[in-house]
C-alpha cells in the first residue's frame, strides 16, 4: 500500500513538473518579452548563421486532428524550408528567422487558437502563419492591440479589405469568390456558356465564399444559379450522399465545388455513377494527388478541373518552383499543394521584415508600418502584389487550371495558365462576397 502511495506521489510530482515546465516562461528556447519582442541579439536555436541575431515568428496551425491538417502539415514544413533558405542566403538585416520555436497546434479551433496566440505573443515579432479565417478573426483584435501582422493561410474575400484586416493580414493569391468567377469564365471559353450553375461546399469563408462568387458570376452573365448545396466534412456527415443527390437532381452544366479532397472524390465519383455529366470546377483545397488511387479516379478525369492560384510543384517553371523542388528533394512525392501554399504565402512576411530592417525599425510597429505600400515579389509564382491599396487593385484576377492526369508525376497536368475572363476582370470588388 505504502509502495503504491509512493508511486502515486512520484507520478503526481512528475505530472505537476511537466505542467509547470509547459506553462512557465520559455527562457531557454527563445526571447522573453521586451520592447523589441521577437527579436534577439542571441542566435536562433540551431542557427544557420551563429553570428546573426534571431527573429522569432509564430505559427498557429492545424497540425494533428483538425480538418485541414492534411494541408497544414506540409504547409508548415514549407515555411520552415522557406526561411531556412532565407537564412542560408544570409538572413534578414543581420538576423536569422526562426519559424519553429513558437509553432502551436490549434486544430482549426478559435479557442485554442486564441489561447496559443496569448501564450506566444510576448515572444514573437509577427505571425508567419495563422491558419483559417474564423481562427484568425478570433485573434485579430489582439493582433491589432499588439501590432502583430500575420499571414492568414485562408483565401476568404474579406482579406482583400482593409476594414477586415486592420492592415495586419497579408494574403497571397485570389479569394475563393474570385476563383469561382475566373473558373466559370474559363468554362465559357472552353466548354461554352453553361445554362445553369450550382455550388457545393462547406458554409462560411471557404465554400460559402466560393458559392457567392458563383452566384455573382451567374447574375452578371444572366445564367441560372441553382443554389448552394451545403455539406460538411465526412467526419461530420458520414458521407456525401445528400450532396450527390442534390447535385445530380440539379442537372447543372457547371458545379463549383469547395470541400476537402476525399469529399470531392466522393461527390464527383458518386455523381458520375448517377450519370451526371456536368463539369466540376474544384477550388484549391479540393485536390490531392492520392485521389487518382480512389475508385473515383476515372470520374475525376472525365469531369473535374482543379483551379489554383499558381502552377503545381512539378510543372511550375518559376524561380520559386525551382527553389521549392530543390528544398523538397526526394520528398516531392510525399507532399501536396499545402507545400506550395506555405512557401508562396511566405513571401509577403519576408518582404515586410526586409522593409522594416531596411528602415532600421525591426520592431512590431516598424513591421506593421512597412505593410502599407509594400510590394512583394513572388519569384514568378504569382504576379507582384502591393499591399495597402483598395481591394479592386489588390485582388488577383487570374488563375491556373489543371486536370487529373495519371501519367503525370503529380497526377495532374496544367491545362492553362494566366487564366482570367471578362466577369472576373470587370467585377467591382466593394465588399467581401460573404461574411467570414
Amino acid at each position: 500500500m505504502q509502495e503504491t502511495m509512493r508511486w502515486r506521489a512520484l507520478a503526481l510530482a512528475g505530472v505537476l513538473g511537466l505542467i509547470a515546465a509547459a506553462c512557465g516562461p520559455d527562457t531557454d528556447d527563445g526571447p522573453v518579452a521586451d520592447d523589441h519582442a521577437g527579436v534577439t541579439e542571441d542566435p536562433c536555436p540551431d542557427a544557420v548563421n551563429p553570428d546573426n541575431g534571431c527573429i522569432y515568428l509564430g505559427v498557429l496551425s492545424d497540425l494533428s486532428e483538425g480538418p485541414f491538417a492534411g494541408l497544414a502539415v506540409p504547409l508548415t514544413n514549407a515555411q520552415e524550408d522557406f526561411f531556412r533558405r532565407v537564412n542560408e542566403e544570409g538572413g534578414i538585416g543581420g538576423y536569422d528567422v526562426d519559424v519553429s520555436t513558437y509553432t502551436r497546434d490549434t486544430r482549426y479551433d478559435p479557442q485554442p487558437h486564441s489561447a496559443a496566440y496569448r501564450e506566444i505573443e510576448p515572444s514573437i515579432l509577427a505571425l508567419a502563419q495563422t491558419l483559417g479565417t474564423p481562427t484568425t478573426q478570433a485573434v485579430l483584435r489582439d493582433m491589432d492591440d499588439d501590432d502583430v501582422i500575420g499571414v492568414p493561410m485562408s483565401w476568404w474575400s474579406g482579406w482583400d479589405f482593409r476594414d477586415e484586416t486592420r492592415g495586419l493580414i497579408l494574403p497571397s493569391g485570389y479569394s475563393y469568390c474570385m476563383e469561382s468567377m475566373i473558373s466559370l469564365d474559363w468554362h465559357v471559353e472552353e466548354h461554352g456558356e453553361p445554362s445553369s450553375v450550382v455550388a457545393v461546399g462547406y458554409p462560411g469563408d471557404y465554400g460559402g465564399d466560393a458559392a457567392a462568387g458563383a452566384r455573382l458570376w451567374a447574375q452578371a452573365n444572366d445564367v441560372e444559379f441553382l443554389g448552394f448545396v451545403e455539406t460538411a466534412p465526412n467526419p461530420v456527415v458520414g458521407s456525401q450522399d445528400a450532396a450527390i443527390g442534390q447535385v445530380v437532381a440539379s442537372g447543372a452544366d457547371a458545379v463549383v465545388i469547395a470541400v476537402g479532397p476525399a469529399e470531392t472524390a466522393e461527390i464527383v465519383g458518386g455523381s458520375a455513377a448517377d450519370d451526371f455529366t456536368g463539369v466540376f470546377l474544384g477550388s484549391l483545397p479540393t485536390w490531392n494527388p492520392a485521389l487518382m488511387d480512389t475508385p473515383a479516379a476515372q470520374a475525376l478525369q472525365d469531369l473535374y478541373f482543379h483551379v489554383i492560384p499558381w502552377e503545381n510543384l512539378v510543372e511550375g517553371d518559376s524561380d520559386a518552383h525551382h527553389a521549392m523542388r530543390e528544398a523538397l528533394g526526394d520528398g516531392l512525392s510525399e507532399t501536396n499543394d499545402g507545400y506550395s501554399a506555405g512557401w508562396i504565402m511566405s513571401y509577403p512576411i519576408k518582404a515586410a521584415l526586409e522593409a522594416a530592417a531596411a528602415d532600421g525599425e525591426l520592431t512590431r510597429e516598424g513591421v506593421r508600418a512597412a505593410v502599407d505600400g509594400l510590394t512583394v515579389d513572388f519569384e514568378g509564382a504569382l504576379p507582384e502584389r502591393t499591399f495597402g491599396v483598395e481591394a479592386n487593385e489588390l485582388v488577383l484576377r487570374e488563375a491556373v487550371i489543371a486536370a487529373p492526369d495519371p501519367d503525370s508525376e503529380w497526377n495532374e497536368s496544367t491545362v492553362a495558365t494566366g487564366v482570367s475572363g471578362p466577369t472576373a476582370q470587370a467585377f467591382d470588388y466593394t465588399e467581401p462576397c460573404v461574411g467570414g
Partner: protein
Amino acid sequence: MEELIASVVRGLGIGSTYALIAVGFVIVYRATDVVNFAHPALMILGAYYTSWFTFTVGLPFVLAVPAAMVSVAVLAALCERIAMRPMVGEPPFAAAMVTVGVFFVLFVLAFRLIGTTVITMGDPWGLERVTVLGVRLFQVDLAKTVIALVAIGAVAAFLKRSRIGLAMRATALDQEVAMAQGVKVGRVFGLSWAIAGATAGLAGMLIGTAAGGVEPVTALVALKALPVIILGGLDSVEGTVPAGIAIGIAESLTRTYQPAYAPWLGANVDVVVPYLIMILVLMVRPYGIFGTRQVQRI
C-alpha cells in the same frame, strides 16, 4: 420507388457499419463498465492497416482485411494491458478518461502513419453497381450490409456459445463473483479489447470503401455509433443491429428526401436525425430498447 429502395439499401449499408462499430463499444462496456473513447482511433487504424497490407505488403484484399483485424486486435489488447489494466478497481469515469487519452495517442499515431494523403482500401466494389429486381444498387452498400451483419452474428455466437464467451458474460454480470469462480478477469478484459479492436478494424475497412478514400479525421465517424448504442442498449450486442439499421435508414431517407421536401430545415439535417431518435427513445426507455433495465436499491 426506385429512389426509395436505393436510399433504404444505402441506409442498410451505413447502418450495419454503425452497428459493427457499436458492437466494439458494447463489448468493452459489458466487460469493464467503461465507454471506450479510443474506439474511433482503432477504427481508422483498421482502415490504415487494410490499405497497408493491400498496397505496401501486396496481400490480396481478402487476406489484407483479416490481417488488419488481427493487427488492430493486438494493438487494442496492448492498450488495455498498458493503460487500462492499472485502472481496475478505479471509478469507471476515471477509466473512461484514460480511454480519451489513449484515443489521442492512437489518433496522432494514425496521423503519422497516414500522413497528408487519402488512403484507399483496394476493395473490389468501388463505384460498381448491380441491378436487383430492376433497381440499380451500389455493390458497396450490399457488401457493407452482409459483412457487418455476418461479423456481428459471429461475435454474438462466440459470446453465447463459447466458454470464453461465457466467462466474458460472467465478468460483465459481476467481476468479483466471476473471479471467485476461477475466471481470469484481467484476461477477459484483454480479450474484450482485442475483439473490440478486431471489429473496429473491420469497420474501418468498411468506412474506408468510400469513393473518396479516408483521411485520419474520418475516425470521428465512429462517434455516430454513440446514438446506436444508446438506442440499442449500452450492454446489448444484439440491440446494435436493429438500432444501427434504424438510424442508418433514417439518416439515408433524410438525406434523400429532406432537401426536396423540407428545404426550409436547412442543410445537413441528417446529421441531427440519429440524435433526435436517441432523445426520443431515452424519454421512453432510458436504458435503450434492448438494454438491461437498471434497478437500484434505495
